[in-house]
């Protein structure tokens, strides 16, 4: 033992300079990394990678959730006293003001695009159709949640009536409002799986009362397995399309055109 110790004690002291250099490199690396991430956020290839991540989340969630898997429904006692409105809460467009003034009597919903039988429906006509009522939790992308009771026409029933063409792949919802006074009208889109989901409604009642203006009167979309920005308010027209590339910013929705994921299931 002594032998080997003696032999080893002749080895040099740890190389302090090398250690300092390594430490410095680590600190430099950390700093570069953080400013780097900020700068990377602006670069095109990084954005492409990030959108692949969105595809990954989409496919993984399609894998674990069956097409029919229902969002949890709640008890009447759990309904929030006030359903928090977000985004546009009082559209100022002239046509919209006029609808509000006469109780949406002149308002019509148009369903067209890649369908065999386009149609136009008044609010009473929608109310006469079979309805579904559900108490669900609205999850905003910002992080908060609110429980409300929605009554409306299952979108699947409307789609059955207009008979989508084989080429139709997405359902686009065109809205009446310019969110935050921007130049674009709000719009959203769903794929056919979400569109035909039993809890996907065009809702006209909130908590048993006609939908208030703040929450999207006269009708809004409810797609309960998606985040809040998918739940388009003030819907005027439902259009079936093969691709949404030609619409507005081409990303399939108002917030999507501003960088948000089209797949709003996460």
């Amino acid at each position, binding site marked *: 033992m002594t032998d080997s110790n003696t032999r080893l004690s002749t080895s040099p002291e740890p190389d302090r300079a090398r250690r300092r250099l390594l430490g410095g490199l680590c600190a430099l690396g950390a700093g570069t990394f953080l400013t780097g*991430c900020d700068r990377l956020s602006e670069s095109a290839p990084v954005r492409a990678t990030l959108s692949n991540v969105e595809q990954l989340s989409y496919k993984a969630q399609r894998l674990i*959730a069956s097409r029919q898997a229902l*969002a949890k429904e709640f008890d009447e006692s759990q309904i929030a006293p006030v359903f928090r409105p977000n985004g546009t809460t009082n559209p100022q467009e002239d046509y919209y003001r006029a609808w509000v003034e006469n109780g949406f009597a002149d308002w019509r919903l148009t369903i067209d695009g890649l369908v065999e039988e386009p149609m136009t429906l008044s609010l009473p006509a929608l109310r006469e159709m079979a309805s579904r009522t559900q108490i669900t939790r609205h999850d*905003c992308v*910002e992080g*908060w949640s609110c429980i409300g009771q929605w009554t409306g026409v299952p979108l699947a029933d409307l789609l059955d009536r207009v008979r989508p063409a084989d080429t139709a792949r997405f359902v686009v919802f065109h809205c009446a409002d310019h969110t935050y006074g921007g130049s674009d009208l709000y719009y959203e889109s769903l794929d056919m799986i979400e569109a035909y989901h039993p809890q996907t409604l065009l809702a006209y009642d909130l908590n048993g009362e006609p939908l208030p203006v703040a929450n999207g009167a006269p009708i809004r979309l409810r797609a309960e397995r998606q985040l809040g920005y998918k739940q388009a308010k003030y819907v005027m027209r439902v259009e079936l399309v093969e691709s949404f590339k030609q619409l507005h910013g081409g990303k399939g929705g108002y917030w999507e055109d501003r960088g948000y994921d089209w797949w709003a299931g996460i």
Partner: protein
Amino acid sequence: MSESVKATIDSDSTGNVPGAPATRVIKRHTLATRLWHWTNLVCLIVLLMSGLQIFNAHPALYWGEQSDFANPFIAIHARTAEDGERMGVVRIAGQAFDTTGVLGLSDDNGQLRERAFPRWATLPGDKWLTMGRNWHFLAAWIFVPLVVAYLLYTLLVPQRRRALFPTWVQLKNIPRTLLDHARLRFHHEADYNGIQKLTYLLVLFGLLPVMILSGLTMAPSVNAAWPWLTELFGGRQSARTFHFLCATALIGFFVVHIALVLVSGVFNNLRSMVSGRYRIQVEAHDGSEPKHD
């Protein structure tokens, strides 16, 4: 004798002086563990900072399914004080704390602005929820599969189980180990001590799974697929609160971890996680033989 000792002693072992305890260098961490460790560091920094960006979009936490906006459990905001000055405030369970300059109100490009976590703590620095979400999900897709694989590996391989699950002797020695830590007396042995093992187990099988599951359950489509998961956490807003509290606990672990790495021989510790080589005292205090070769 000297032949056989030479064979086990690493050829460039250094610093052994006559009279001092004999040491030798072992291979402590496998390449897989080392790569995993540093990938985790990068992922966790990205996850934390992008998570704070996401939190800033609605800087309040609640218990239950939904948000009781008037009564958050924790909220970070800015308000105008009685003297007319703007101040940052953190409210926890009804108690308010002045956090001006860091939380609630902080410097943002030379101007005091209302934001829950300051610019330097979020990714990206600007208020940019969607980019924060993008970074968060990218890092999560790297981090989560690796954690799951590592946990399975740890449970399934007997050698890994021995490395992480404490022996009866180590558990009994915990008070002594604690005392030694308090005196900054560290024993460099091949095996982790009882405290280390319990801490790593708590992080690996406690904090990380809660972190991952509470994160998953915030996704509305996961919620539809696995409603029991949300119920397990007591509702979506509770899950969000647990997610935040676990992140805080992980920061706590990180701070203690770094502190101990620094005071218990920073070069030796770092080297063991870079090249895998770790210097131990040959005559281990509990008499146990090194198990990782």
